[in-house]
């Protein structure tokens, strides 16, 4: 009875679903990484690069990322509000609708249905489904927060609220379109407007799927797993509001040196550079928190996940703003540097922090300990090495590419053909696949550890009953 009220089952369901979609997405990531140096791995029409790439990005952002966000938010909200979810049954339905939606989304992308807007590829019937899904989530989160039994709202709750509100607004606006049949539609925005709205959405998808929810987890699980209170409450709040204020103006940094009016690009760059401050507010807060007792890095295995996770967040939030500067953008935009940036964020910050949160939650649900700290440490080192290798190889080849594209002869003509610059990527693309394999083996240790903990917990529960 209690179990259902507290709704650990739903939390666990989301975590397992998230892991499942994570496996699908990562395997496809490996696959497309091979396709980039060996075209024979394309199997037309369903398994070509063009279709698999969107399954990779959607599967991991929405399946792994958002799935984890749903489950972990339910867990955090129940605890910080000191009450069960307002609508536990709705949360259960939400879990099933989520999995159905991701499965349909994947199938539609394999079939080649695509709005041609990055991270908003899904066609309009699925968009409507996703909006319904999000409303189910929002009702439960807001309802529970409004009826909370703890007056004070901890910083994680603020990040959770921002996530729920911002994603709803962004998703609806960017997907506004006029249907032309069940599987085809035309965006209501056109030309430069369309690009501007798309990247306002695209950048904030990073902001409100890969940043704010992960910070909500960071602020909750770091103190929980180390037993060290957050260094400064005020810093966390100021960083929160300035981050939210800054983020929504920055989308046009994806459109530097395009026909977008100069002043819009400039405004976006200004806000983008400003973001270093609020981002580093959280980084500093994390460091100072553990700074009161660095021995936790050794004695509590989860500490290093969070501290390295926030370190990669810190690196991302310096690298990202730098990329927005006109001079830097003109070198690295359109090159492989960008996937290098992306995967330090997704592998080093997002996946690291969510995996650590799951390591914390699963044993708590079963009132037991993690199956193997040793396996968790192996997981940590493998994903760390895999991720660094991925980013570093892509940075090198990205800069090389950018420099070769810009190189001109004395008469002003281009020094290199596109093909000549392309083949120089091959050794780095091969290394990236190797990096991906190392990362994947690390993730297998993680999954094994989680499943064995669940098994151990179930046996324990059965022996008690």
């Amino acid at each position: 009875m209690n179990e259902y009220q507290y709704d650990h089952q739903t939390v666990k369901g989301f975590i397992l679903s998230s892991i499942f979609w994570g496996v699908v997405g990562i395997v496809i990531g490996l696959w497309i990484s091979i396709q980039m140096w060996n075209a024979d791995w394309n199997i037309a029409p369903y398994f070509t690069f063009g279709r698999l790439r969107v399954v990779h990005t959607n599967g991991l952002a929405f399946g792994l990322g958002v799935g984890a966000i749903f489950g972990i938010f339910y867990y955090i909200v129940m605890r910080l509000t000191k009450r069960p979810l307002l609508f536990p049954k709705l949360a259960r339905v939400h879990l099933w609708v989520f999995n159905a939606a991701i499965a349909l989304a994947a199938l539609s992308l394999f079939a080649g249905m695509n709005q041609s807007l990055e991270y908003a590829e899904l066609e309009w019937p699925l968009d409507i489904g996703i909006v319904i899904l999000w409303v189910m989530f929002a009702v439960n989160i807001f309802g529970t927060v409004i009826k909370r039994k703890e007056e004070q709202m901890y910083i994680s709750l603020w990040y959770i609220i921002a996530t729920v509100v911002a994603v709803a607004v962004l998703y609806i606006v960017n997907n506004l379109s006029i249907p032309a049949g069940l599987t085809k539609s035309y965006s209501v925005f056109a030309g430069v407007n369309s690009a501007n709205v798309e990247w306002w959405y695209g950048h904030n998808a990073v902001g409100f799927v890969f940043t704010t929810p992960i910070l909500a987890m960071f602020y909750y699980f770091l103190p929980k797993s180390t037993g060290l209170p957050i260094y400064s409450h005020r810093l966390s709040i100021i960083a929160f509001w300035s981050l939210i204020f800054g983020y929504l103006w920055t989308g046009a940094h994806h459109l530097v040196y395009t026909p977008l009016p100069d002043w819009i690009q400039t405004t976006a760059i200004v806000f983008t550079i400003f973001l270093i401050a609020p981002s580093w507010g959280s980084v500093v807060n994390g460091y100072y928190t553990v700074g009161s007792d660095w021995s936790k890095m050794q004695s509590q295995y989860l500490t290093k996940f969070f501290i390295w996770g926030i370190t990669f967040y810190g690196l991302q939030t310096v690298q990202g703003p730098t990329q927005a500067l006109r001079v830097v953008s003109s070198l690295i935009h359109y090159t492989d540097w960008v996937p290098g940036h992306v995967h330090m964020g997704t592998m080093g910050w997002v996946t690291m922090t969510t995996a650590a949160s799951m390591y914390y939650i699963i044993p708590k649900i079963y009132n037991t300990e993690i199956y193997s700290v040793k396996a968790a440490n192996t997981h940590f080192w493998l994903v760390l090495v895999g991720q660094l290798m991925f980013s570093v190889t892509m940075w090198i080849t990205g800069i090389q590419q950018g420099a070769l594209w810009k190189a001109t002869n004395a008469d002003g003509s281009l020094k290199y053909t596109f093909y000549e610059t392309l083949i120089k990527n091959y050794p780095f693309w091969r290394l990236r696949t190797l990096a991906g394999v190392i990362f994947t083996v690390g993730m297998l240790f993680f999954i094994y550890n989680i499943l064995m903990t669940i098994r151990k917990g179930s046996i324990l529960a059965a022996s008690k009953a």
Partner: protein
Amino acid sequence: MADHFVDDIEKFEAKETAHTLPVGWVILFWALILWGVYYFYMYTPSLGGWSQNSALEESLQK
């Protein structure tokens, strides 16, 4: 069961440093805002005069 269910908010927030902002961070915060004002002025065509097109023309002169 119930004991690990709820969280005490006090355990999350340090008392001694609750309202401290590191000085370095505050400097960074204001410096970035000032820099933003400067950059906005310099790179907005109707203010500082720079524009994407004029920059392109200039680079072609060279």
